[in-house]
Structures are given as C-alpha cells and as structure tokens.
C-alpha cells in the first residue's frame, strides 16, 4: 500500500526524498564483486523468464490475464508481492523506528480483514462476471461513464506513481550505494519493460513470486541477527525502554502496544485515535486498496478457478501477517543497535533535518540557523549536534528511512549484502511491474477498446498492450525526471491514490451489494467523491490547521488526516450514491446477474477435504490475527 503511505508525508513515507539529492555524503556501502554478481544474476534471471514466457503470451487472455491459469499459491504470493515494494519496506522500517509497533497496524488490521473479505465475499462477483479489470466491473454494473472516470484516474495514478517510485528508489540507491540516478532509473525500468512487455501478466506474476522469495531471503537475516545481538525480544524491549527514558525522561513501553494507547490522539507517538485506525484504516483505506485497486486484484483474477481465486487472498494474508518480522522488527532493532563510528548510539532523524543540514553542507558551510534549529527539535545529544555544526568528520545525519539499509550494512557481508540489495531492487521492480501491467490492461480494455478502437482483432489488442507497457514505462521515466526537477509536485502525485480510493470503494460496495444502486449514482458518486476527497486534501495543503477539523482533534498528526479524509470521502460518496439512486430508475434485476449480491446465482463448488477449504483457512487467519492483536495489545 505504498502509494497510500507516501501521501502527505505520513509515517512510513519516504517523504521529501529529493532532499537527499543535496546530501553530498559518501555512500553508506560499497559493493564487492560478489555482490555485483548476485545483483547481475538476478537481472539475467528476470529477463530469461520474460523471454521464456513470450511464446505463451500471444492471445489477449494470455497476455492480460495470464491465461487465467495461476494456482492459488502463485496468485496469492503475487497478490502480496505486488504490494511489497522496497519503498514500503524501508518506509515502514523507518516508521517502526519512530513510532514502534503501531506501524504494524498497516499490516494487520490495515490488510487482513480486507483480504479475507475480498477472497470470501467479493471475489465471486469479480470472477463470475469475467471482467478483465475493476473499471471493467464498473462498466458492467454502472455503465461506461463510471468506467471511464475510474479507468482514467487509475491509469494516470499508475503511471505517475510508477515514476515517483522509480525516482525514489534511484535516490535510495544513490544514497546507499552511490549509484548514478539515471543509471538506476534506466536499468531497472528497461528490465521491467522487457520482462512485462515480453511475457505480459504471466511474466509479471512469475517474477513477483520470485521477488517475494528474494525479499525474504535477503531481508530475513537482519531481524534474526539483530535479535541475537539485542539479547532476544526481552533484551530489545528493555533497551528500548531505557533509551526512551534517557532521551525523554519518561518510562514508557508505548513502543510495544498496538491498541492500549490509542484512546486519545495525544497518548501515542503516532498521534492517531483507535476510531481512525479501525474505521479509516481498517475499513475504508484497507478495503479500498485490497478489494478495489486493480494493481492487486488483477493478480487474483488470473487464478485458474473460483476456488483458487478465493484462496489466493487468504494464502496471501498469512504472509502479510508475517511481513512485520522483516520490516517492523528491523526498525525497532535499529533504534537500539545502530551505532556511530565512535561506538555511540546512532540516532536517525527526519528528512527535514537531513535536508536542513545538507543545504549548508552543499555550499561548504553548515547552515547554522537552519541546521541547528532543525536539530534542536530532535533528541540528538547536544555534543553530537555541535559536532555536526562544526562539520566534524563521521557526523553525517541519516534519516529514519535508512534504518533498514543501515541494518543490512551492519550485519550483511559480501554476497549477503548483494542479496539484501537485490531484495530491495526486486521489491521495487515487482511494484513497478504491477503498476505497468495493470496500466496496460486498463488502458487497452477500458480506454483504448471502448473509446478509440472497438473493432480491433485479438492480436491487435495484444500489440496495443505491449506498446502501452513500453509507453507506460517511458512516461514513468519522464515522471521520475519531472519529480526530480519539480520537487513540489511529489506530494500531489503521492496523494492521488488516497484521493481515489475511498470514493471507488463506496461505489463498488454499493454496486455489488445493493440492487437499487443506479448508473447515474455510480458515476456521480465516484466523480463527486473524488472532487470532495481532493478538496479535503487541498484544504489541508493550503491551510495546515484544517487538519484538526478533518481529524476532529487538535492533537492529530498527518497520519490521522489520511485515515479521516478517507472516511469522510467514503461517507460523502455513499450519501451521493444513495440519494441519486433513490431519485433515478434502477436496472432490472435480471440485468444484474453475476454482478450484485442477491441477483446472482454463484456456481456450486465441488466439495473438497477440509484442508483445502477456503473457510477453514480463513478461520485460521482470523484466529492468528486476533491472537496477534491480543498479544501486542
């Protein structure tokens, strides 16, 4: 869900990454030949997969839907992997460093209920109506106008987000490894264009599964070794509490509680309230992303039968629940284990502090006023601040988002570091491949075919799909350079997802579960909902104090804005859909077969042993999910 996380610099975002460009420091690590070999072999493998699958991507069904022959395991892993981008990994590790395990909400309540709902409740409708895309479902349910609004907004969002992520990843590679920005952008985007352009969705899915394994293989060592060094979970806990006490004088174990301190905005480090977490994140944002964002839904639609399509998100949910082990835990471990070269504890700071201190460094003079006032807001020791201001060696500042790479560098030697970097690159490429493959399908099926050329042959649409991947990647590269030169637009691009998601969820839920919802209501609910959501975003952008009004508390922080904005936009769209539906004439029920609950006869599934039954596995997920929330209450 990194698109969402990046919005408005909430925790978990990589924030104003362009600031890092100004930071003319030495790269954090230098790769050895063995590391370069590990990375090069990965690129050879993904291109090989693309070439191998080219011969099996000749028809539109094969190219855009992977022939609808993925097993539940492959669709499920791909479903999770498309979301597990490297920016997400690094962003949330940084959030855990700042806010403790509250960041885990975005992996548990912010994902698991929605994934189960998609698999058990919504998937039958998506699957039975044989739509190629989520805008395609809107077309069948509400007509072409709603489809066009969804398709254009989704296509634009995908391409711009792909560009922003591409740029952000290139900046990370520059900071961590010293790689040239253009080199990183071109190599990664050409590789993605090659393997998705050649093998279509099947190639994207294959590579996502491969990338998922690599992410775990490359990142799993960090928490294992970190826990060993920290003295286990109890040692970690004790050291974090001691650190907190030494920095703030307060004895608090807030870092280890998911829910206990969310009774008020002021009592938890993230500045959120449980109502926002449950209704804004757990319902609107999470359901919006996991059940209506075509980037992830497309992976499940490629399953070979309805049971596999239902099982895929459930399988994915097991892995999603485990991701905090390689993301949140390294962030927490970084809080107590990262060290400066002199052996003192290394404290990470916000991007704004890095930026303020880098601005002076670039000119050869540390900007005393900007840098010192920025550092004054941190808990950096006074002596260290003085050393930074004096320009002493080995006093570079690192941002929260560098927690994961710094932990990798701490524990991973030659070869293993290459694997860790490959995991980050793989995460980036899986996210980008997801963006461009989803863009290609929506562009071809929901924009080109209905609006430009309705009578093309099957092979013509495959050609359009391949070309749209190339064009999509090219536009993404352009967007990446646009962001590099116009830093201000990054916030707006990153906010696109959070602006679209709530109205889309509202319209799809009413369409799927309310026979009375009409075509005009769907169209206006989506369009006006987007306008409303964008207006709330701009209101806070122009008048930051409006945050208190949107989140209903003067103590609210940016994360609260995201969740409450989504909640209000969802409610607004829902009101529009209900009111307009009551004023207009609905479709006959007979025309809603396969689209709406209560008007659809779902196919009967063959009985299977209990260990293959999706409900049994879903119950197990619910039990584990509940247990985790209770344990870390």
């Amino acid at each position, binding site marked *: 869900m990194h698109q969402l996380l990046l919005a408005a610099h909430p925790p978990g975002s990589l924030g104003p990454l362009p600031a890092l460009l100004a930071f003319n420091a030495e790269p954090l690590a230098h790769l050895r030949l063995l590391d370069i*070999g590990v990375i090069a072999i990965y690129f050879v493998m993904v291109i*090989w*997969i693309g070439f191998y699958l080219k011969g099996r991507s000749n028809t539109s069904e094969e190219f855009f839907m992977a022939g609808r022959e993925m097993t539940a395991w*492959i669709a499920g892993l791909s479903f999770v992997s498309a979301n597990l981008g490297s920016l997400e990994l690094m962003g949330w590790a940084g959030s855990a460093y700042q806010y403790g395990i509250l960041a885990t909400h975005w992996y548990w309540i912010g994902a698991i209920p929605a994934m189960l709902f998609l698999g058990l409740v919504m998937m039958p409708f998506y699957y039975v109506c044989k739509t190629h895309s989520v805008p395609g479902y809107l077309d069948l349910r509400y007509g072409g106008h709603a489809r066009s609004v969804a398709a254009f907004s989704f296509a634009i969002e995908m391409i711009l987000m792909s560009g922003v992520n591409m740029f952000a990843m290139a900046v990370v590679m520059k900071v961590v490894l010293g790689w040239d920005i253009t080199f990183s952008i071109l190599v990664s985007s050409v590789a993605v264009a090659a393997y998705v352009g050649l093998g279509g969705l099947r190639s994207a899915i294959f590579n996502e599964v491969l990338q998922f394994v*690599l992410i775990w293989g490359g990142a799993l*060592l960090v928490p294992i*070794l970190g826990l*060993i060094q920290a003295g286990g979970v109890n040692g970690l806990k004790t050291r974090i509490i001691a650190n907190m006490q030494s920095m703030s004088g307060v004895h608090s174990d807030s870092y280890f509680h998911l829910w206990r301190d969310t009774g008020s905005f002021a009592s938890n480090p993230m500045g959120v309230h449980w109502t926002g977490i449950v209704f804004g994140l757990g319902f609107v944002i999470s359901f919006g992303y996991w059940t209506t964002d075509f980037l992830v839904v497309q992976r499940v639609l490629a399953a070979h039968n309805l049971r596999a399509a239902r099982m895929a998100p459930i399988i994915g949910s097991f892995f999603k629940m485990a991701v905090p082990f390689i993301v949140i835990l390294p962030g927490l471990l970084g809080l107590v284990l990262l060290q400066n070269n002199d052996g003192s504890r290394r404290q990470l700071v916000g991007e704004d502090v890095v930026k303020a201190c880098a601005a002076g460094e670039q000119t050869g003079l540390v900007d005393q006023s900007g840098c010192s006032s920025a550092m004054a807001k941190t808990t950096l020791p006074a002596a260290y601040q003085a050393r930074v201001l004096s320009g002493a060696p080995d006093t570079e500042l690192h941002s929260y988002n560098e927690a994961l790479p710094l932990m990798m560098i701490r524990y991973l030697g030659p*070869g293993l570091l290459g694997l860790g970097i490959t995991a980050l690159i793989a995460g980036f490429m899986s996210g980008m491949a997801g963006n461009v493959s989803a863009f290609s399908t929506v562009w071809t099926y929901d924009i080109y075919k209905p609006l430009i050329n309705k009578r093309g042959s099957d092979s013509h649409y495959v050609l359009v799909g391949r070309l749209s991947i190339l064009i999509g990647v090219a536009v993404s590269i352009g967007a990446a350079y646009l962001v590099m030169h116009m830093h201000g637009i990054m916030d707006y691009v990153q906010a696109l997802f959070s602006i679209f998601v709530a109205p889309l969820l509202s319209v799809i839920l009413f369409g799927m579960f309310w026979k009375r919802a009409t075509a005009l209501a769907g169209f206006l609910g989506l369009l006006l909902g987007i306008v409303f959501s964008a207006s709330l975003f701009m209101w806070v952008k122009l008048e930051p104090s409006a945050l208190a009004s949107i989140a209903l508390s003067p103590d609210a922080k940016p994360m609260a804005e995201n969740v409450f904005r989504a909640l209000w936009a969802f409610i607004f769209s829902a009101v529009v859909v209900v009111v307009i539906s009551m004023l207009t004439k609905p479709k006959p029920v007979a025309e809603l077969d396969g689209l709406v609950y209560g008007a659809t006869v779902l196919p009967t599934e063959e009985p299977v042993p209990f260990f293959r039954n999706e409900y049994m596995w879903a119950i197990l997920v619910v039990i584990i999910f509940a247990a985790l929330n209770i344990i870390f209450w």
Partner: protein
Amino acid sequence: MHGSGIPIWFFIGVLLLIYGAMIFGYGVFEWSTGSYPPLVQLTSLHTPVWWGGVLGLLGLFYVLKFRPGQAGK
C-alpha cells in the same frame, strides 16, 4: 502454475541454488582465511556459511522437485 512448461518454482530453485553456492563458498573462504569484513557485526556466527547452505539446499530441493518434465508427477 497450471499447464505445461517450466514451473516458476524451478526458476526460484535455480536462483536460490546459485546464490546459495556463491554465498556458502564465500563463507567457507572467509572462515578458512579469517579475513572478515571489518565493519560487519557478528562475524563469529559465520552467517554466510549457514545461510548460504540453507538457500542452496532449498534451491536444490526446488530444482529437483520441479525440474522440467518432472513437475506434477
């Protein structure tokens, strides 16, 4: 994956086997020569040896189980 062709698990097996061999080989070299990277922590655990071994064995298992012509049998 359904249908004919090389399963994705075979590709994964190949990659893990290669990585495992490279990392394990380096770990053995590092252990035998005692030349550890200076800034890396916990080198006494010989992580490349056992992690490379785990990756290699996992890769070997997947390569054998899902090798072309063998999958699904």
